[in-house]
């Protein structure tokens, strides 16, 4: 069985509540008895964790800072909850014409995924750990379910296209070396400022900082970021979604009114006949 299929089987098994509870107990035990997490010292702070989307909103910035043990590496992940996504596929029809040839459906894929690390991921983490914490595109590829695909090559091709599409929309980004780190009293202070794209829709986002040593994650901490619509933006968006008929009528009446208004102003201005 391929690693891809194993991963998918894992996802399916994880959907049963009993299994989830068992896994939770094991992870709990693992953390307290065997891991080195208890020895790490990590505090994080997220600046600007409530992004207000108002009428003149054009994106924002979010900074993540904190203190971790010296001699460790850091990985900072900002992601939206996993969801179902549908995109349109372009392909060749009749041999030479590029057009939409159907839909591509993705399960367990985040709409936004930013990953910043102190050094290159492959140099600081082994692949099991990356899979466990969903760090990096290869782990995400093993985690996400894509349909319809013919075979693994096809799946891989469409996953790459998906990343390309998300990166062009500024919703996916992976970098290394952008986190600034300063040593102080046997600890290290870290800081990164991330541009928050206006393309990111309103919703909840999770910031996770992983402390990495000897190719393993030894500690992690999480904070939430909420992007929410406020004021006129919120009022209009609520109305469009919940009071469609009224919203439609207002849209039509406003357009008619403006059309007549401008027509009359110009009619007077040019003196008509």
């Amino acid at each position, binding site marked *: 069985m391929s690693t891809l299929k194993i991963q998918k089987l894992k996802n399916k098994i994880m959907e049963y509540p009993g299994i989830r509870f068992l896994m939770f107990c094991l992870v709990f035990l693992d953390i307290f008895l065997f891991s080195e997490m208890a020895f790490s010292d990590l505090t994080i702070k997220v600046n600007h964790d409530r992004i207000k989307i108002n009428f003149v909103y*054009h994106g924002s910035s979010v900074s993540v800072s904190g203190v971790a043990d010296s001699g460790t590496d850091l990985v900072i992940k900002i992601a939206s909850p996993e969801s179902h996504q549908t995109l*349109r596929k372009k392909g060749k029809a*009749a041999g030479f014409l590029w057009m939409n040839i159907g839909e591509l459906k993705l399960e367990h894929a985040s709409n936004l995924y930013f990953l910043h690390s102190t050094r290159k991921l492959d140099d600081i983490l082994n692949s099991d750990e990356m899979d466990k914490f969903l760090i990096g595109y290869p782990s995400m590829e093993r985690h996400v379910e894509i349909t319809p695909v013919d075979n693994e090559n096809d799946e891989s091709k469409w996953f790459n296209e998906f990343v390309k599409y998300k990166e062009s929309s500024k919703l996916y980004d992976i970098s290394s070396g952008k986190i600034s780190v300063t040593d102080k009293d046997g600890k290290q202070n870290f800081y990164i400022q991330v541009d928050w794209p*206006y393309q990111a829709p309103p919703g909840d986002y999770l910031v996770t900082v992983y402390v990495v040593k000897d190719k393993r994650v030894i500690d992690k901490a999480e904070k939430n970021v909420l992007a929410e*619509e406020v004021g006129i933006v919120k009022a209009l968006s609520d109305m469009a979604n919940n009071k469609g008929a009224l919203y*439609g009528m207002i*849209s*039509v009446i406003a357009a008619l009114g*403006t059309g007549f208004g401008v027509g009359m102003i110009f009619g007077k201005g040019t003196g008509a006949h």
Partner: protein
Amino acid sequence: MYIYLPVALTSIKVLLPIGLGLLVGLLSGLFGVGGGFLLTPLLIMFGIPPTVAAATDSNQIVAASTSGTYAHWKLGNVDFKMGLYLLIGGFAGGLMGVQAIKVLRATGNADFVIKMTYVLMLGIVGTYMFIESISSMKGKKSEEAKAGKESKTGNFLKSLPFQTRFEKSGVTHSALLPIIFGGFVGVLAAIMGVGGGFLMVPVMIYILRMPMHVVVGTSLFQILFTCIEVTFLQAYTNHTVDFVLAVLLLAGSTIGAQIGTVFGRKLKGEQLKVFLAVIVIAVTIKMIFDLTLSPSILLSQSGGH
């Protein structure tokens, strides 16, 4: 200055939609087309989701065509009777077109048919209008041959029942004629997802033989009603009308429509036809490029549900 669009969920420079609106409004006042075939692709290019672009465009056309109809009505250029018959046909055709799309979607060929219809209709209409108006500008050389052909078609059209006089256009036709051709345009417009002005205008010029200036006013009157219906349905069922974007677009387009009407009075019918033909051909060529050049990204935002 940037503004956030609450339904499109994206941010856009304020001047961009105003400028685009001005351009499309100008075309609307000049030629009596809604401009959906131009504006919707432009909005998508600037990052507006496809469904929001199409729905908001129709909201904007309501304003531009109101402004344009008003200006043309003041000039005495709207044939309300003809407009009404075309509307009846267009409405019935639209319903049929929507059903046709449902069947095509089920068989999985919708996109191919839509794109091909688009390219063929634009290409044929543009080329025909271009050749016809250039040759009539040069002088009416084949007048005799034309006259012979026309009288044959004319005799057939006159033999149809329900003959009625359209005062404003100065023509007499069977009432069936605008209803049938209105229906034909309605089917195609629904399949292509556009208002159909660029198809209705040639039908009025070449088949209904209406004078160019009455064509523009009447077409705008007809488009106005189609787009009111579409805007309401899109807002009600799909929640895809972005009011803020529509306001920015119509701020430009209502003024553009007035300027277009003024310019239109200064241009001859033939000149107007050549301009429209050139724009339609340009859009066709752009579509052919899009269809044949390899795209850099193979995925795009879904049409939504």
